[in-house]
């Protein structure tokens, strides 16, 4: 009986074990690859952020993060900051019976919630178009895939509308930021995040450019997260929506009652 149970358990356990081994192998490969890449590039470009966490507290009004780093010699630096990607819909209004109403729409699959670029010199002086496109350097090169059969000019109109709306919200930079060099090797730039910055995992990419080619790159993660009271409220609302609703109603009744009682005495 006991032997049977052990046997059954070991049968059950086998696939889990195999998966664990696979995962460990994959992780080791990833780490190894990462280390190799890091050691190759570390000699040419090293960059870091003044903070890897942007904490959105109740008093949050936007913040600035300093990116600083060093190169192994002369060259130019470009910084690309990309927020988490998610689907987005652009809707177009047309006049129908005198009223402006949504008539058409286009869905984009992978839209970064935030996008900004900073460079030490204007990009067109540094690299050619293929390099710009490969590294998605600058808004015209930002990849915004959409599943549609629209003619190219229509697609372009939707695309530029998306960028325009994002710029109005302050989430896509209107102009490129400036990377300042202190001497030949040391560089820094300030990245500004507005009060309405979306939460999630951001990617900060630093590129070293020499003779029209990207010779080194380093990616640094940046987390934008709600902290403290605002985090608790949004977690509560998301994880226990019904209880949250009941609490909101009870709180409102209590507040209304308290105010009524307070004013009776006056």
């Amino acid at each position, binding site marked *: 009986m006991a032997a049977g149970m052990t046997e059954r358990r070991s049968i059950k356990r086998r696939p889990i074990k195999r998966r664990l081994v696979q995962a460990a192998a994959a992780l080791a490969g990833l780490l190894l690859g990462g280390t190799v890449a890091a050691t190759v590039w570390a000699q040419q470009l090293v960059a870091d952020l003044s903070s890897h966490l942007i904490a959105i507290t109740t008093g949050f009004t936007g913040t600035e993060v300093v990116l600083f780093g060093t190169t192994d010699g002369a060259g130019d630096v470009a910084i690309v900051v990309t927020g988490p990607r998610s689907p987005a819909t*652009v809707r177009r*209004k047309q006049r129908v019976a005198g009223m402006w109403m949504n008539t058409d729409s286009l869905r984009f699959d992978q839209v970064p919630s935030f996008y900004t670029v900073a460079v030490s010199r204007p990009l067109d002086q540094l690299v050619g178009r293929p390099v710009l496109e490969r590294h998605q350097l600058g808004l015209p090169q930002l990849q915004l895939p959409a599943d549609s059969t629209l003619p190219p000019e229509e697609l372009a109109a939707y695309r530029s509308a998306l960028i325009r709306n994002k710029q109005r919200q302050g989430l896509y930079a209107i102009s490129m930021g400036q990377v300042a060099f202190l001497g030949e090797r040391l560089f820094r730039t300030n990245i500004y995040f507005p009060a309405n910055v979306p939460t999630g995992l951001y990617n900060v990419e630093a590129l070293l450019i020499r003779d029209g080619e990207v010779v080194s790159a380093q990616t640094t993660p940046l987390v934008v997260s709600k902290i403290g009271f605002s985090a608790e409220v949004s977690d509560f609302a*998301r994880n226990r929506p019904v209880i949250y*609703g009941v609490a*909101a*109603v009870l709180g409102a009744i209590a507040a*209304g009652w308290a105010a009524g009682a307070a004013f009776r005495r006056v």
Partner: protein
Amino acid sequence: MQVYLPIAEMSVNALLVLGMGWLVGFLSGMFGVGGGFLMTPLLIFIGVPPAIAVGTQANQLVAASVSGVLAHWRRGNVDVKLGVVMLGGGVVGTAVGVWVFGILQRLGQIDIAITLSYVFFLGTIGGMMLVESSRAILRRRAPTARRGKLHRHIWLHGLPFKMRFQRSKLYISALLPAGIGAVGGMLVAIMGIGGGFLLVPAMIYLLNMPAGLVAGTSLFQIIFTTAAATLLQAATNQTVDAMLALLLLIGGVIGAQFGTRAGTRLRGETARMALSMIVVAVALKLAWDLFSRPDDLYTLTMGLR
């Protein structure tokens, strides 16, 4: 002073929101309307997403109505029996409203349906009240004019299920207040407002209720419909921002107290005239937005919707 709103995911000026809450609370206490029809456009105007504006102000209306009802209750201005009958109709109306909302959403035209119903209801009711109240004020200035009959009998008073409402000194069909409540409930679901601006004139003109009881009784009913709306919004759409609601209700409950006091000093027709002018102004503003060319023809929505 800037405050971050955790659900709306934006930062607002706390004093501005407190002031908006106070203003809407004041009107709410004065006229017995929830003020939702004013709060939604105001919140959207300062950049709060429409869905969160609707869900959150339903929450703040609960507090404003409780506080307003207490003030009216102490003066004996609430007809609970009539309010409960209205609420019965309100439940049915809300269910129908949710069903209609779903159909419109599938058709992809919920935004324009909401704006159009705002323009239609606010425009019609505001316009009718404006005409009526200015006539009443003119009559007051000419005291020689013959007084009208106390009760006019129209077909509405011949409906079955007659009930006696002692407080309001009414003997009318229960279908009448229930029907008014049902229309109010539908508005809660579709437009996300308490519906007071519709209930108050309906109670005055269709039920011939004593004017003093109207505000308290309509607020009494609105407590329950807005509480239901808050629950529904929080549970299904997660669009209730507790931080924003807190700011609005602090301003709102204080404003409502002042409003109730100011309201007792106002003559009925003057109050109706003032309210109707505000309602018509909001309707005109919304109609203007609907027909004038927007700055950008394209809008962006992040996420799946």
